[in-house]
């Protein structure tokens, strides 16, 4: 469940710190010390009051209990279901949308994945798809990514997952198409107008942090079971990155350029079409990249409402705890993600390079593209006509060896490591998690609320204090306060562990290009591998506990934090490091006194993203014993009478996310200011 908030790659603020460091340092130190003291004081007061007031005003709610709000949400859901066939809104609005999107999905499916009426096979067979994919990657990127694409697509076939992969691809492409249809114009608008941007941001946060399971069931009520619902669920989750990044791209076009166009007498439309859009093309393509990644993550989950593809293979295999088969399908998703990522990245680099290359080369290139197109057309024709080019040959032997290797590995880990892991789990749970959770859940709600608001105000300024106060108030209103506190405890523990791990690995990657090159592909894989695949071995190691959920969250969140920290370390000017070396600092001193302090901005960003990614795993945690909000969401998805409570729990997750996002962002702005 990759409900993550992918932030646009916020460019690091220009590193002027080096010049101003000497004069700014004393002031900053004084301010930081006093801030640290305030934080300490707040925590001490909390502990004292906790000792006195323990167990009062804790707002508990048992697993099967509901509040008035939850019942009201249930009734609203039921009445929609009961009236869907007579309501004009359904007849003339939702049904029309469904029809259009359903047709689009079916069209793409008939092209590459599903047999259409009279044909036993899709219109374009494997050879044609491989040809088109290779040609397109070459045309928009370069020959290296084209080679990667061809290899990747052939690998799907060898895994014995050709049709499943194509189903996933078809759904991803349809969803990305629909998402971009809305996202690019909205992004341009948000880039041009501050007000539009302000209005859109909370909605985008909401779309990205609301757990998908909350809206999957109602979506099938609005848009029926099938392609349309799966596509729309994916669009909801995948569109925001494109909107954010497009807006960001438009905003970062230098003002002088726009002014120059204005002074030449360009109209608004002209300056948009001739200046703003071409100049932000490269960044917009990165937005498309993020949307594709998000869509791919969601398409897996859409298998819960019968979306065809690799997600189904994963879930079905897990019913019989078949780790090998699940891993094989997960690997196909990883390969697809890496291929799509590299192609779009190459495309964005090309957008830059194309403008610079010379004319003679361009003429040759044109001929070459034409030749490639002809070859591709031939391949498509062949795969349309002949069985050998339409149906991937072989039995997918590579797939069965991958599956059995994964099985062996997971059995070995279970047999040999479980003693060690139990001791570690119990130490962490009893030593850290349980006391912290007790502190949060057994304190009166107003005390925890006051502490949160206080911390928000101290760390992020009065604005984030106000945001925190609003979030705390709404959290109480959702009726799942106690569960939210339990989840909060696990989330914070997971975030701390994520950051510890990320600093160690991130610094290593930042300092050694070789380590970076070796580790990075693993991180990519950990980010896109559906978590469900590795849950089974984790369960075997740690049992159905909160700790398992924490480990799963770390696996998902740490790669992002590592990458951010590695970039931060690498951006520390080489001259500074050299100066420190010549002043006699050893490696440890350079890391702790120079590189980490100077990468402070990256560390705060890593904290922000780490927290948001950990929060996005709360629902997955609910599937493996974390209980609390995650379990509430899962239960709401499975049981009608708990639907309202699940929705409320989903809202609570959103509120926690927004609260921490605002606090950490404000804190980041302060530290870099």
């Amino acid at each position: 469940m990759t409900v993550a908030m992918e932030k646009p790659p916020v460019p690091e603020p220009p590193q002027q710190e080096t010049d101003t460091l000497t004069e700014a340092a004393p002031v900053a130190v004084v301010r930081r010390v006093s801030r640290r003291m305030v934080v300490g004081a707040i925590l001490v007061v909390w502990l004292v009051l906790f000792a006195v007031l323990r167990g009062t005003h804790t707002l508990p709610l048992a697993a099967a209990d509901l509040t008035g709000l939850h019942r009201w949400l249930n009734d609203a859901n039921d009445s929609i279901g009961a009236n869907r066939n007579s309501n004009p809104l359904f007849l003339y609005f939702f049904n029309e949308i469904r029809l259009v999107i359903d047709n689009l999905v079916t069209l793409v499916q008939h092209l590459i994945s599903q047999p259409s009426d009279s044909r036993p096979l899709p219109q374009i067979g494997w050879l044609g798809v491989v040809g088109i994919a290779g040609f397109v990657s070459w045309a928009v990127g370069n020959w290296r990514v084209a080679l990667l694409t061809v290899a990747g697509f052939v690998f799907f076939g060898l895994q014995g997952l050709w049709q499943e992969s194509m189903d996933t691809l078809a759904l991803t492409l349809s969803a990305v198409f629909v998402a971009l249809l809305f996202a690019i114009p909205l992004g341009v608008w948000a880039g041009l107008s501050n007000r539009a941007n302000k209005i859109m941001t909370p909605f985008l946060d909401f779309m990205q942090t609301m757990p998908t399971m909350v809206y999957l069931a109602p979506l099938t009520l609005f848009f029926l079971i099938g392609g349309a619902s799966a596509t729309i669920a994916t669009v909801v989750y995948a569109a925001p990155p494109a909107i954010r990044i497009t807006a960001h791209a438009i905003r970062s076009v230098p003002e002088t350029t726009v002014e120059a166009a204005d002074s030449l007498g360009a109209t608004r439309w002209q300056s948009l079409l001739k200046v703003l859009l071409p100049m932000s093309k490269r960044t917009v393509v990165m937005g498309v990249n993020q949307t594709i990644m998000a869509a791919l993550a969601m398409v897996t989950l859409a298998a819960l409402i019968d979306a065809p593809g690799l997600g189904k293979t994963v879930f079905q295999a897990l019913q019989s705890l078949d780790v090998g088969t699940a891993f094989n399908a997960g690997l196909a998703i990883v390969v697809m993600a890496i291929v799509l990522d590299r192609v779009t990245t190459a495309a964005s680099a090309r957008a830059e390079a194309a403008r610079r290359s010379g004319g003679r080369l361009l003429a040759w290139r044109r001929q070459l593209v034409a030749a490639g197109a002809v070859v591709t057309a031939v391949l498509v024709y062949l795969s349309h006509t002949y069985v050998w080019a339409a149906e991937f040959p072989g039995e997918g032997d590579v797939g069965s060896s991958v599956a059995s290797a994964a099985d062996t590995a997971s059995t070995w880990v279970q047999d040999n490591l479980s003693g060690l892991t139990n001791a570690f789990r119990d130490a962490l749970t009893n030593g850290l998690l349980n006391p912290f959770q007790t502190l949060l859940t057994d304190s009166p709600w107003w005390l925890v609320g006051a502490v949160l608001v206080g911390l928000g105000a101290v760390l992020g300024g009065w604005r984030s204090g106000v945001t925190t106060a609003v979030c705390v108030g709404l959290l109480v209103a959702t009726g799942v306060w106690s569960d939210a506190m339990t989840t909060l405890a696990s989330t914070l523990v997971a975030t701390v562990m994520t950051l510890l791990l990320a600093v160690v690995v991130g610094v290593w990657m930042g300092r050694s290009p070789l380590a970076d090159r070796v580790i990075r592909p693993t991180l990519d894989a950990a980010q896109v591998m559906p978590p469900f695949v590795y849950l089974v071995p984790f369960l075997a190691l740690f049992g159905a506990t909160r700790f398992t959920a924490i480990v799963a969250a770390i696996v998902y969140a740490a790669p992002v934090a590592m990458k951010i920290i590695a970039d931060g370390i690498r951006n520390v000017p080489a001259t500074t490091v050299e100066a420190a070396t010549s002043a006699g600092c050893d490696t440890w001193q350079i890391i702790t006194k120079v590189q980490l302090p100077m990468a402070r901005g990256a560390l705060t960003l890593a904290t922000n993203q780490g927290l948001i990614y950990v929060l996005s795993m709360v629902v997955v945690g609910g599937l493996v014993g974390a209980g609390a909000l995650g379990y509430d969401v899962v239960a709401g998805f499975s049981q009608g009478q708990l639907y309202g409570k699940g929705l409320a729990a989903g809202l609570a997750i959103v509120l926690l996310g927004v609260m921490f996002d605002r606090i950490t962002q404000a804190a980041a702005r302060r530290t870099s200011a």
Partner: protein
Amino acid sequence: MARQTTQWRVGAAGMAVLALTLTLTACGGAKVGDTSAGSGSSGGSGESSGKCGTFNLAVNPWVGYEANAAVVAYVAEHNLGCKVTKKDLKEEIAWQGFGTGEVDAVIENWGHDDLRKKYITDQKTAVEAGVTGNEGLIGWYVPPWLAKAHPDILDWNNLDKYAAKFKTSESGGKGQLLDGDPSFVTNDEALVKNLKLDFKVVYAGSETALIQSFRKAEKNKEWVIGYFYEPQWFMSEVPLVKVKLPEYKAGCDADAEKIACDYPVYKLDKIVSAKFAKSGSPAYDLVKNFTWTNDDQNTVAKYIAEDKMTPEAAAKKWVEANKAKVDAWVN
């Protein structure tokens, strides 16, 4: 630059040659849609398919259900010539599909009085289609090693004696009673309270987590007690033993808050959409006539879960070995 141009020129020439070769070599080989390749679809276009049409069968996410669905789908396709569309859905969404016309039948239903009231009584979009012949047991189970080592644990009266052994990092000092997928019927929280047991219900959250816990417990001789049910394929791998709770009497589960008795024996049944029941489709008659035993289901479930056969292959194997039973459903 010049070197690159040459490279590209070579590339273009290479591609042209490749295209030519492919065109030439491709002249042989079977064509898509030829009778040999399309035998599957032509077989289905016999006279019977016009009558049956499409049959939308919900597949709920547990292997026992999948066994039922696989066999019914296989018979519907091969004996009746229907076009079967299986839809992988959870119970709640599957029932919702009766109203929207997206689901024709649910082929193994466990009680679900709430859904019956909503969709059969109130919305009238679903109707019952008889029992499957399977009897479902729900209850508290322990791994076999534990039942052997401490036989008295199989009586709920003795559970408290062992509560301390069942303590985990999650159970807050009490014994842990592990519950699974939230979609399954459970009264465990009320049971623990009303039987005054020193236990806490811990929600594993998924069936996967539950099975993995039991598997690990049996292997490492750990103390685990948890919610489970049969028929279930996992029972043939690790035959869990059921703990005796106060006997079920009709009506003892009327008030959910005050339940202090065992779960009833569920007569698993089939639910179809009201529209499908009136359609006159032969698939409806098949669903209505379909009955088999727990052993039958366990056999097919074992083919799928342990022998890793595809549902189609598993169904084929069972159907071919049980012609008489199948004939009784379709005639």
